[in-house]
């Protein structure tokens, strides 16, 4: 039935597994150089990727740039997508987040250099509060986040949306590095279980 439905839409890929992840069909076609399939994929993924990058990078014009880089990367790597390693959404989100992190880290590095040279304060603190108080929509996700302890939630959010390494998170929250590693791990496990992600 599903297969027939896909066929009617011109998605006649015979791989049955793709039915479970319709984006997999599009990505596979894109992986064979099909630009119209990639355009469809873009429509499905753009809000997710743009949202991630915006959250991390903040600056809208840089966000556009980084999101574009992420999509081009997705296109380049499309022939190598391996569905045994996760869904298309998860893969694309990973790519976009990594790009965003790389961007803020390299900016941070040059800012730090400038500040060191100018004998100014070594670590920025002004945007910490703002990042801790994240306005996360989505009831299911918000509820899942509420099940975390305060420090777990802050640690996960500072890392994922704040773009901070766990060492920086430890400094920000004034907790030992070893402790923060454990909190991040415990928080992610609880979040995963609360959201019902199969392992």
């Amino acid at each position, binding site marked *: 039935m599903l297969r027939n439905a896909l066929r009617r839409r011109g998605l006649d890929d015979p791989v049955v597994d793709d039915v479970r992840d319709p984006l997999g069909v599009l990505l596979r076609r894109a*992986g064979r*150089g099909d*630009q119209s399939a*990639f*355009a469809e994929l*873009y429509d499905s993924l*753009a*809000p*997710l990727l*743009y*949202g*991630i990058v*915006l*959250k991390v990078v903040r600056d809208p014009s840089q966000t*556009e740039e980084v*999101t*574009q880089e992420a999509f*081009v990367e997705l*296109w*380049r*790597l499309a*022939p*190598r997508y*391996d569905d045994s*390693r*996760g*869904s298309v*959404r*998860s893969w*694309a*989100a*990973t790519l976009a*987040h*990594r790009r965003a*992190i790389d961007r803020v880290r390299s900016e941070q590095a040059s800012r730090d250099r400038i500040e060191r040279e100018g004998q100014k304060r070594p670590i920025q603190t002004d945007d910490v509060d703002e990042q801790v108080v994240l306005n*996360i*929509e*989505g009831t*299911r*996700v918000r509820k*899942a986040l509420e099940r975390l302890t305060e420090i777990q939630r802050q640690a*996960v959010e500072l*890392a*994922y*949306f704040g*773009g901070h*390494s*766990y*060492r920086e*998170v430890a400094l920000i929250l004034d907790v030992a590095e070893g402790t923060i*590693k454990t909190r*991040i*791990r415990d*928080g*992610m496990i609880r*979040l*995963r279980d609360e959201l019902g*992600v*199969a*392992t």
Partner: protein
Amino acid sequence: MSGTDVHQLAAAYALDAVDERERAEFESHYPTCAVCRPEVAGFRETLSQVAAAVAVSPPPSLKANVMAEIGNTRQLSPLLPESVVDLATHRNAKQRMVRSLSIAAALIVIAVGAFAVGRHSGAGSGYATAAAAVFEQPDARTTPLDKTDAATGAGAASASIKVVWSPSDKKAVVVGDGLPDPGPGKAYELWLVDGTGAHAVRLLDKAEGRQVRRVVDVNGEPTQWAVTVEPAGGVDKATGPIIFAGAV
């Protein structure tokens, strides 16, 4: 990174909250770790759901820009499994130096080995001469291939394959030792991997006496070599997992 410590990093890694050194170390660990690999996948899936809660529609102009740019962007090869990519990416500079220092030694050993086995390995009477011609090329470069996790089976532990390639001669010598029998109706096949994909170079013999000795024609500039087990007739597109791979 110690053994107990490394598993702790799966969550921080999935969050991109590790530094570059840790990232590189963890990436050389987790794809083959039964604990970390599924954990990373689960955390990434989790994070994509979290991220969906902050989804925002981008400005419409972005789509046109993306589509314009992909029109000018080459896609990577479809065949390359992660194992090959990882091998290429994570081979560190130190290993590379050791490797290049050992090339001269390897050349001598292979040359001697080639002459020794050429006569009786069934590889053809021209093998020794052809192999020597490749070794003599100043641009000949030796690539010892790394075993991947897919290289299993009796005796796989001691198996080794080296490829000595001369770009000017457009030929390569394949030297395999200690290779397990690929199985009935199967044979080893060598692949040239370049920017456009993986190309079948040559079906190697059945590794009689656990050895492979071949001089093969190479039309192209490999960035990597890979070996798979394929039906004895040979295939144009790899069907088996990559069991040996090495970056040139």
